[in-house]
């Protein structure tokens, strides 16, 4: 069963993320970790508040060594990489990867290697190729690969790059992604 979902988004990502999280049940039996490209100066809490207002899940901006809890969404803080270790998340201020910090590849690769077949990766709208390599790593270690339908994405470069790297990925409109994630992760027995 999948107990970690990682989501990467860039240009146009906020609306896509809100659409997915809006239909997600509070009791999703997995932790969700999000890397959204945004400016280092972006308002510290506005992004988290916007996401939090649109979902029943708990949303928090990730802090260093936060334990991974099911039913919780962890958002990468601006100007840090966010990585997944076996039981927690870690931050890094190492150089930007492909001009991005947080980098989706950095998040996805660490999630793939720490959680292997228990991890699912979702690549959403964006105008670059970040996430393609990371999604490939998730797929080759037995995890689930999901890509937003490029036809409906605000910018299709990122989903197309991900599909080129992982041709077997499930292609879905955002409206259908939440229910697939529920299918993959299941619901916690005791819901809050």
């Amino acid at each position, binding site marked *: 069963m999948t107990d970690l979902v990682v989501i990467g988004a860039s240009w146009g990502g906020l609306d896509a993320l809100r659409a997915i999280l809006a239909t997600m049940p509070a009791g999703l039996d997995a932790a969700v970790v999000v890397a959204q490209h945004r400016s280092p100066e972006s308002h510290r809490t506005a992004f988290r508040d916007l996401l939090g207002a649109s979902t029943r899940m708990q949303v928090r901006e990730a802090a260093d060594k936060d334990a991974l809890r099911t039913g919780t969404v962890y958002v990468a*803080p601006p100007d840090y990489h966010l990585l997944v*270790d076996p039981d927690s998340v870690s931050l890094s*201020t*190492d150089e930007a990867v492909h001009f991005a910090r947080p980098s989706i590849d950095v998040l996805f690769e660490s999630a793939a290697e720490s959680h*292997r077949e228990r991890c699912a990766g979702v690549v959403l709208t964006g105008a670059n190729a970040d996430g393609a390599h990371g999604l490939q790593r998730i797929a080759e*270690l*037995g995890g689930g690969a999901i890509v937003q339908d490029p036809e409906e994405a605000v910018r299709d470069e990122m989903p197309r790059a991900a599909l080129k790297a992982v041709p077997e990925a499930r292609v879905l409109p955002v409206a259908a992604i939440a229910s697939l994630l529920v299918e993959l992760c299941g619901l916690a027995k005791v819901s809050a």
Partner: protein
Amino acid sequence: MAVQVEHQPSSPEGRLETEQLELELLLEGVYRQYGFDFREYAPASLKRRVWRRVDAEKAGTITGLLERLLHDPDVMERLLLDLSINVTSMFRDPTFYAALRTQVVPVLRTYPFTRIWVAGCSTGEEVYSLAIVLHEEGVDDRTRIYATDINEAVLERARAGVFPLDKMKEYTENYIRAGGRRSFSEYYLAKYERVLFDRSLTENVVWAPHNLVQDRGFNTFNLIMCRNVMIYFDRTLQTRVHELFYDSLERLGFLALGHKESIRFTGLEDRYEEVDAQEKLYRKVG
């Protein structure tokens, strides 16, 4: 008898497990040959940094890197740079430096003399930022800053005070947002593509090697700054370093961490009061 393994070494899972073993052997080799202990670093970021050195040395595998560094200290020197340089900028998080100016300096001003420890100072950006704040507040002549890092080569760079010219635009913007009172360019001389910071800023700075993982405390301080250094440590190591900081702080001394770090789960959270929750500024009370 046929050799049996859980995963075929050629499969992605098998390669990952072999790589994990190689990483452990590398850290063991580094520790036993050179005495640096990276075994309690957070695994994911550590692995990325090690692979950067494997690729730069064209060593092919982590074992290939181990083979080279055991026989060639220059390779170890370069790996040490990769593992110990923490990328930062002057006045990173301008609001933190503004808080330092308005909430910490007024307290320091009431003491006849203060000691500050910048732990894990890397290439010195934070030390120069701090020195500028203290200078503008007129407390620099009764303050001593102890700037320490695990890596002596990095300390040399920090001490030299030479930084790339193309960073000055970003640093100037940060400085202004941090409440800087002058023109940032007063603090450096530009020459070709680099700038040299005013030597008088660091007259009261002691640059010294110190390994947070293995060395003990060496003084007591009124302020300890350690921002975005411990994010590379696992939680066990973080807790140990927090104990070192606690023991090294004067009563009512300040502790400054990075924006996304905290003293939760260190067992010491009750010993501090929160001075500024957003800026991760704490004060030792217990």
